[in-house]
């Protein structure tokens, strides 16, 4: 049983209520309820609305996951939940719900790190990690490079964004180009119809920047450059080639992400690069990473797009890993930690 623990994972760190169930590295259920529609009603994300939406969605989503997996609460070996980082009120709903469930069913509970779960989810697709890996985590809220030696022990941060996250740059450039939120999918689609004809800046890649920020990212200057380019066109009264701008912007983001990720692998002497987070669903990033990694004999692991964005299966996957590794469960009084440090895998 310990080799193939049956774990239910709960994710409520932002706008998705996710409940996943895994047995070892096998995905049994991945139920998701999004409060995006709810936010649309309010015209934007409101933390309090997200918390309320999680509260309403949590129990139905748990029931749906149990039905999909064909298991009962009593069958579970453990319950895992995102303890942080994320929106404080949103996290609290998942943490409180998971604690109640654990208490009622007398199952052990594991409070886990959302970012480490984005790495662990790939084990559901490509099996366990066989050696050290470099993880590139790119989403609306995060852009980080981490060294992962043993997922049950901890990860070592190597670098992160110093201003905007990669996904945030996608959202803001999409808004500039008149595309809907979230900006990743429409930019990806538009870029396929365009050409990367504009050379936008690559943040923190000059020799001087590389000395102090070798594995850090900056996307704020890129966002501003795109805004300036579009504004200059509009001032001249000439049409904005939206598809080409989208392709050029996307090329700049993917160029820097893959360049630094591969540099990190080579620097650490690591043969595996795992990519996670919502931006990992971007088709150009996936293709460019594969292409560049192959040249250096590095294997790229990236899960299917649905597992890249926030979900409960990733939390269950990390929980299952911790159970199998014999990690002690969290104490029932662990808090939701909105600023949870990456050096903590679990609490």
């Amino acid at each position: 049983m310990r080799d193939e623990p049956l774990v239910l994972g709960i994710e409520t760190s932002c706008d998705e209520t996710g409940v996943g169930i895994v047995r070892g590295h096998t995905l049994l259920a991945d139920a998701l309820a999004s409060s995006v529609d709810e936010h649309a009603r309010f015209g934007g994300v409101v933390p309090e609305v997200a918390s309320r939406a999680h509260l309403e969605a949590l129990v139905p989503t748990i029931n749906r996951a149990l039905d999909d997996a064909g298991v009962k609460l009593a069958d579970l070996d453990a319950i895992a939940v995102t303890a942080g980082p994320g929106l404080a009120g949103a996290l609290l709903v998942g943490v409180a719900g998971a604690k109640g469930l654990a208490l009622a069913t007398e199952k052990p509970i594991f409070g886990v790190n959302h970012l480490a779960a984005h790495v662990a989810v790939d084990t559901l697709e490509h099996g366990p990690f066989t050696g050290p890996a470099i993880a590139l985590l790119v989403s609306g809220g995060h852009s980080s490079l981490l060294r992962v030696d043993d997922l049950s022990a901890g990860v070592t941060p190597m670098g992160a964004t110093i201003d905007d996250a990669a996904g945030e740059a996608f959202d803001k450039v999409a808004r500039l180009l008149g595309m809907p939120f979230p900006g990743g999918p429409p930019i990806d689609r538009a870029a396929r119809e365009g050409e990367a004809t504009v050379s936008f800046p690559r943040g923190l890649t000059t020799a001087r920047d590389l000395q102090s920020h070798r594995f850090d990212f900056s996307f704020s200057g890129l966002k501003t450059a795109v805004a300036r380019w579009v504004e200059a066109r509009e001032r001249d009264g000439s049409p904005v080639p939206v598809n080409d701008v989208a392709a050029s912007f996307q090329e700049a983001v993917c160029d820097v992400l893959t360049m630094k990720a591969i540099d990190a692998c080579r620097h650490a002497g690591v043969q595996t690069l795992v990519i996670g987070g919502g931006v990992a669903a971007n088709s150009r990033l996936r293709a460019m990473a594969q292409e560049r990694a192959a040249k250096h004999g590095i294997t790229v692991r990236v899960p299917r797009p649905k597992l890249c964005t926030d979900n409960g299966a990733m939390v269950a996957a990390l929980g299952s890993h911790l159970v199998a590794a014999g990690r002690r469960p969290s104490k029932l009084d662990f808090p939701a930690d909105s600023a949870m440090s990456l050096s903590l895998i679990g609490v």
Partner: protein
Amino acid sequence: MILLTTPDDTRAFGARLAKLLRPGDLIILNGPLGAGKTALTQGIGVGLGVTGDVTSPTFVISRVHRGPVPLVHVDAYRLKDFEVDDLDLDASVDESVTVVEWGHGMAERLADSYLEVLISRRDDDTREIELVAHRGDWADRLAPLLPQT
């Protein structure tokens, strides 16, 4: 009106502004995408001596940085309308300096008096900063920051 040439200049200006701040202050930053609102807040963070890297809070909506005077950094870009209670802040606004990006028309109700910082991007890529005092003693406090004529 203050002109700043590079993002480092914007950060340095934020650090100078921070020296005039005290607990309970509300600063509202307005300006287009890429104006330098986060860069200015980074400078305020340095000036206040708070912990943790100040990065864009757009996705997380708000972030609290601990320090002698804590910095509450809010980004209203994704918010339509909010009350301070909605932010689930893990800090007291009365004891902190609160900086709200994209706060135009929304954040004013958070405090009786506030400082509005308008940042605009000129065609030559320099930034133009205008400080607008809204009630309180802001006008007197800002005097050291204004260009001597």
